[in-house]
């Protein structure tokens, strides 16, 4: 399975996302922001970082990169897309996911090992988890407070589209402790914490994050994607 990992100017965790894809048994394909060609990949990861320096607003400029036009098109046609941290911000700015991410409530960048609850296994990126399972992966961001209007939040909850929730003290002021959400199909998922930094024993607090990537691969193998 070929999985695209996009590099924007200022992407930082692109190498880590590619490593996670590889460890999950798929082949990472590096995609360049200025190249609209997705090179036939079957899924796309938008990695963490500070694309375009986070200038204007996180993810606001990346959204207009040539590669994003193709990613949005592909996502609408059913290609799975995962947005991590800055990638989540890009997905919100691209309107593939609802809501927005604001500066952390404490007004500080925070890096810590974060406990999360996987709220649903009914997405392409969480099928290998059990619903309700708790995992620990790194969280590192300055603007990770998830917000949306109450109606949207109610709808996300009602449709089972809250994918990850913070457990314990809320690290950034996210509404309803939401750490990650999906689109209505469950193929497009965005989250602030970094599962790609919890895929290798000894590098990160756990290997809990690997299942995000193996979910994708397992889904492809069992033909769920077909």
């Amino acid at each position, binding site marked *: 399975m070929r999985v695209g990992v996009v590099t924007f*100017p*200022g992407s*930082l*965790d692109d*190498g*880590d996302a590619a*490593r996670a894809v590889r460890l999950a048994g798929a082949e990472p394909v590096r995609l360049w922001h200025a190249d609209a060609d997705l090179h036939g990949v079957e899924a796309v990861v938008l990695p*963490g*970082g*500070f694309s*375009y*320096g*986070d*200038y204007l607003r996180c993810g606001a400029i990346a959204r207009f990169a040539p590669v994003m036009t193709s990613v949005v098109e592909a996502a609408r046609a059913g290609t799975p897309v995962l947005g991590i941290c800055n990638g989540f911000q890009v997905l919100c700015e691209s309107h593939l996911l609802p809501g927005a991410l604001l500066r952390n409530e404490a007004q*500080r*960048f*925070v*890096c*810590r090992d974060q406990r999360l609850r996987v709220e649903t296994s009914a997405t392409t990126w969480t099928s290998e988890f059990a619903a309700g399972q708790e995992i620990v992966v*790194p969280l*590192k961001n*300055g603007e990770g407070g998830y917000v949306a209007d109450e109606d949207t939040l109610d709808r996300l909850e009602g449709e089972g589209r809250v994918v990850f929730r913070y457990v314990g003290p809320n690290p950034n002021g996210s509404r309803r402790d939401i750490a990650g959400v999906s689109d209505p199909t469950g193929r497009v998922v965005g989250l602030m914490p*970094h599962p*790609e*930094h919890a895929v*290798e024993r*000894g*590098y*990160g607090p756990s290997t809990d994050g690997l299942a995000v990537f193996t979910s994708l691969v397992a889904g492809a193998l069992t033909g769920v994607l077909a």
Partner: protein
Amino acid sequence: MSLDPTPASRTERAAGARVAVDSVRVAEATPDIVQPWAELGLRAEEYDRIRDILRRRPTAAELAMYSVMWSEHCSYKSSKVHLRRFGDATPAALAKGSTTMLAGIGENAGVVDIGDGWAVTFKAESHNHPSFVEPYQGAATGVGGIVRDIIAMGARPIAVMDSLRFGAVDHPDTARVVHGVVAGVGGYGNCLGLPNIGGEVYFDPCYQGNPLVNALCVGAMRHEDLHLANATGLGNVIVLFGARTGGDGIGGVSVLASETFDVSADGSSGPSKRPAVQVGDPFREKLLIECCLDLFHAGVVEGIQDLGGAGLSCATSELASAGDGGMRVALEQVPLRDPSLRPEEILMSESQERMMAVVRPDRLEEFLTITDRWEVEASVLGEVTDTGRLEITWHGETVVDVPPRTVAHEGPVYERPYARPDWLDARQADRAEDLPRAGDADALRAQLLDMVASPTLCSRAWVTDQYDRYVLGNTRMATPDDAGVVRVDETTGRGIALALDGNARFAALDPYVGAQLALSEAYRNVGVSGAVPIAVTDCLNSGSPEEPGAMWQFAEVVRGLADASVELGTPVTGGNVSFYNSTGDTAIHPTPVVGVLGVLDDVDRRIGSGWAEAGLALYVLGVTREELSGSAWAGVVHDHLGGLPPRVDLAAEQLLASVMLACSRDGLVDAAHDLSDGGLAQTLVEGCLRHGTGARVWLDGLRERDGVDLTAALFAESAARAVVAVPRSEEIRFTDVATARGLPHVRIGVTDDAGGPDGSPVLEIGGVGMLTLAELRAAHEGTLPALFG
């Protein structure tokens, strides 16, 4: 400030009025014009020397260049005669140890071999004065500058560290500096995608007006990728690339770093020097990193020089000096953010995120394709010549025509007078060992709690949680463990360990010993992490070199480090000096901050600092002496600084490190934590809190063997010691190894995950009592959040 003998106002210039430029021709025609050499920080004799070198008066641009390159910060004019000791000591250190150096002092950063064809380069640099004036930008550009040094060597930066020192926590100005500096280090480093893997934070009133911000960067490369910057090859082109040049940081080097500035009683500085601090853009720097690595990879550059302090003045003169010919540069080709900048301002500007490359003409097109790909602006400024001179023109007029070595390397060298301060005898006689000690268990328990909660010893998580330690995915260990450990080779697991340490209180009591203790501590931190220490870098922060006492302290620090580097077999591969860290008559403690680099064949063999399970045997390695002077106990409990620092025992440090290496390779210990600030008590508390597993400890055996009382057993800061947690199954093998090597070891207790009345984990120390980990954690971790929010 205007350097031009016929100044014009900025509005005139901006309006496009073509102002007569102070060219070489004009200088020859107007030899007697009075020039502002004093305002630029030059001494009369230095100005005269420039006139002698040029056999005429310098142009404004030349004066700018010489003044900034002959400043203390760039020329090392007061430290050079002492720093020679490091170079002189290198052959002996190499002969004694096992290090292979690929590049040493004099390059942007030292480079050492770490095996399997890998090389590592690392260096620390100070950004102290800017960080007081403008804490966020000062600290941010400190990180940016040291990262560019590493890139220029051809290496990919793989981690950063920082050593921060602030004034008293309760001083009204401290929070401003703390917030700005921490946010600046984080804001820049996080956005660059470099894991911050450790460092130190201290508070002491002596840093009130002179905070210290020392940033370290480490990079890795294959041997064949090592690049040294020089302008060789007649006809090769000189390309400036990266950010545009603006008016920020003009004179930053000579005005900020080389001159003590006065602070009024209310803590505010006098007339604003703010414009002299550079402004950083980490996003641009991230692009520059990737761009430079691509350029090196494609083989399209002969060399790359970073632009840091002294900007183009430094880059052009250093590149030309290192080459074999000369260099010609057309200054109007420099892309500007501010079109009104004059040639001398362009030469002095310290705008960040810029690099200069030497490129063969036939590779220029490929070069520009790569810079375009990264959206990095590039401009051809000139070429390598065979004239032996550095010639800089401005719209066709020659404004600089100098022998480059006289700018870059042959600046003034001073043998500053130095003398041991008179007050030192009295201070050394005022021993902390004579201070009153706690009389009973309750008093000891209270002291221990006060100490772990004190700003000196409390958890640094409030600071370090603002830094990304995970990015790049190779961080095997980071703060609060003893050393940062990073994987370099993903296939084999080969990697490095790094520690950055200093104890200025010890250096204040005896700078020679204090410097050696700083090196000892960093060496020990690398050693107990299971790595082989191989090289040293340093940041030497001092008061004014014009004050004989401060100069003596500096000389002693260098002598101490050089001597110890030989004995430990770890060469000093590079370093940095920061003078003039004084406000009024008050100087900082001499503060040598020392970085030690170690190698691990496989970073999975690294040893962490905390124990994670019950039933492990705890041993203290090394000997505890009645050494309380300069300790955290003396400072926190008694607000006291006097006496003689702990004894240095480099052979014992080597022995400890070699036993720890054996433990790492054979998997004999589960955890190891060095003993330093706060002594054994602090080490035990940290070892317990790391993973929330407690311990029960009895110190009778240690006290009997070493002949010390409970206060010394708990709080003495004797060197060459560590605590290890040994699985029962390995205990015999472990003690056999320690015995065979002659390393003193004494069993002091066991780890335990229960023990409290409610079954919760506790730290129980015989003669002190029981402390629940919950109360220790509250005390240890609550301090900085309470102070700084």
